[in-house]
């Protein structure tokens, strides 16, 4: 999956929930990605270059990573 597009999508989610406050925004972004992204999209983002992610999206991806790891375990 094209990392530029996935980065854009993650940042867009983060930007739209930002006004809910930092902590909620991080949780909501992560929940959204867990709930709606297909495994290959999550994997591509997690294994790819995350440097383009906004701070909220980057923190959210850490939560996604933990969720993926927990499910794999």
């Amino acid at each position, binding site marked *: 999956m094209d990392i530029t597009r996935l980065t854009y999508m993650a940042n867009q989610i983060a*930007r739209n929930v930002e006004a809910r406050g930092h902590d909620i925004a991080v949780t909501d972004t992560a929940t959204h990605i867990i709930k*709606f992204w297909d495994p290959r999209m999550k994997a591509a983002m997690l294994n790819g270059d995350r440097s383009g992610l906004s701070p909220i999206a980057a923190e959210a991806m850490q939560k996604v990573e933990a969720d993926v790891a927990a499910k794999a375990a």
Partner: protein
Amino acid sequence: MGYESQADFGTPASTSEKMVTLTIDGRSVTVPEGTSVMRAAAECGGSIPKLCATDSVKSFGSCRLCLVEIDGARGTPASCTTPVGEGMNVHTQTPRLQKLRKGVMELYISDHPLDCLTCSDNGDCELQDNAAAVGLRDVRYGYSGENHMGLAPDISNPYFDFDPSKCIVCSRCVRACDEVQGTLALTIDGRGFGSKVSAGTSLDDFLSSECVSCGACVQACPTATLQEKSMKEIGKPERAVVTTCAYCGVGCTFRAEMRGEQLVRMVPWKDGKANRGHSCVKGRFAWGYANHQDRITKPMIRKSVDDPWQVVSWDEAIAYTASEIKRLKDKHGARALGGITSSRCTNEESFLVQKIIRAGFGSNNTDTCARVCHSPTGYGLSTAFGTSAGTQDFDSVMDSDVILVIGANPTDAHPVFASRMKRRIRQGAKLIVIDPRRIDLVRSAHIEADYHLPLQPGTNVAVLTAIAHVIVTEGLANEAFIKERCDWDEYQDWARFVSDPKNSPEFLEPVTKVKAEDLRGAARLYATGGNGAIYYGLGVTEHSQGSSTVLAIANLAMVTGNIGRRGVGVNPLRGQNNVQGSCDMGSFPHELSGYRHVADATVRKQFEDDWGVTLDPEPGLRIPNMLDAAVDGTFKVLYCQGEDILQSDPNTHHVAAGLKAMECVIVQDLFLNETANYAHIFLPGSTFLEKNGTFTNAERRIQLVRKVMEPANGYEDWEVTQLLANALGCGWDYTHPSQILDEIARLTPTFTGVSWDRLDKEGSLQWPVNEKFPDGSPIMHVNGFVRGKGKFVVTEYVPTDEKTGPRFPLLLTTGRILSQYNVGAQTRRTENTAWHPEDILEIHPIDAEDRGVKDGDWVKLASRTGETTLRALITDRVAPGVVYTTFHHPSAQVNVVTTEYSDWATNCPEYKVTAVQITPSNGPTDWQEDYASWAERSRRIKAEITAEAAE
């Protein structure tokens, strides 16, 4: 059911709760106060002769045929205009009345052709019936006097003729146009003997006039004056079957009036709760596509999209499809497989397509065209209220005091509901329209919006937040409602956010281009004007903030307490006939039927036990993600039923690239649509006239679709899916869609009380239908929100990344027109092209002049994504800086220019905002020419090639 016209009670039903008892011809009858004597007589089995009265319009009292005698009343009053009174004693059949009626009828017939035997209305004519009823035997005046016979008929409308020779000037057509349709196109021209029905001005015929060809006048006409051309050609039907229209989300029910397996005409069903006996040009007339020469009725396969199609047997097609699916699944895994359920097909068909994908293919890669229209509605309303659907039934609008329409154009896209809405507005309801374009509702006959907020495309959230700002800061919030029904803490957070001066209409005016004063007025009106109802469409959802806009709408309804009763609510106007249904059926990749997430093990187990399979717990790919994954090489098989993603989805080049990258594209459709140009397998589909099933309309109303003729392709669409499923080893054994519906009811909590038998008996049911709501739910969230407390969500305005600039200074927005339907696969194959033969670009006079564009010129429409050409229409309906077009024709391929930006939450494409430039042009672009020749080549069928060679 045999063929009898539906009962006509002469005048509309009274809604009064007070009852009145009277005696008619010795029979005692009790009816609501306000009922006419005519209707009361009909309700107790009588029949008073009538010509100018019909129960779809108000009484008029002009024909003088329905006279009655009432004890104690003077003279012989007209029964249509006389309301019932307590203890009234009415005589409808007396020698005196017979004489009077015969005299009236004699005058009518003295100016009417006596060609009954050869008249196309023979046996279906109220004039004929009433002449018989009054016992007319002779016309003493002769026929040599001045008369109206021999006048030229107006045959300009492609579907019905107007024959003035047969007109009795009862004005039922004019009143139907006024009251039922609300277009007010027809009128009676002249006076006395010179009176005649006119379609508009003296220069107009029915085609050139403002007539929208809804058929209400044809329905109302008691003679052969206004009649369907098909009746003339075929003759009187012999049976009628009630079924549901397959065009828009209004879900009109019709009587399909048949001769054998031939459809003679579609007549709106008066008992249909969605349409209440009304129709539009599409549902009533535009069904000729079903037998169009382009329709493909045999399966076809090919190895490569560069090869011509090869016609094969069903057995061969299914075996080949199954072997390709198995081969690619073995090679690339289940997650490389997926499909798209159709919002045009039935609930049962959608359910089976998502079932074959989940249980047969083994992936959750199922999506539906709601992805590109109302997916943000699903997300927004389930977040705010707890359920993914509109809150009201259509009847509710008749109790609305303020109607707020945002991003919807009901008179074009949901015309039958728009007629109801307009009737309510003519009764005095206030209207607010939020739309970049001056849609018909803003100002049309006897309708004028109190506020039109012509916002800049892409600023919905800013405008709605500014409205909320006014409501909260001016103390207009309904705090009692909020405290009782919503989460108070979340409300306070939200109220603080919207109250910020940066959300004031004045601060946002430079962005939204909406005058702050108008916005404040509209906000006050919505908050204080009584029952406030919001209706919205794709102008809300098809934006990068589509989901936020739906949430902002929900916030407005909650802050003003406009939810949970008649006349209020949040009402998404659904596009496709069964888009609500396809969403309900678990078509989305992340959820099973009834909007339950696939990650929920309890829910999944229910399906796993029922289906005998293990389901993937991870969400699948959405349509745009499928295309991305295909380009990436990880998505290989697409089973696409009844959707044309190449034409309807944004950025055509990218869709084409995605389809090209797949190894097996299976298209199941009526026609070789644009997507089929990239397909390897074509499975012919069946029309709604050829199948049994159910559709669910925008008001959650589940209605039966009944088969009136055998499928030309041999199978109903659900049968084709079952053939394929069984070739994959699924072992399905459905013999009728009612069994699929039983399975849906068994597995879906909102459908537990739904069954085929019940729908057959009751006509329709609105989900949820279950233990809690045994008779269904016309209005939702009556005593509390489905999710518990209503949720206020902060919606910050985030501008779209699609920006205008020096190269692309204009904003393009897209929409629909009345006579065409979406990609036009159906309507383009009917006479509806008489109204809209091509897509046209609307451009403001200032922008046109700047670019040297004149009315009717070819112009090139270019964006960062692509370019196309079409002709220009210069109009001030669009604001300067904004251009508008429709997307009904593949020749224009408007989605070549739309971008890949999409809603942040659902990936619903941002069709409504594209930065473009317009320049004069000589003709089609290279892309259009290349595509046309490629499409032609791709549609070759082998037998045809051989035949050509033999010649």
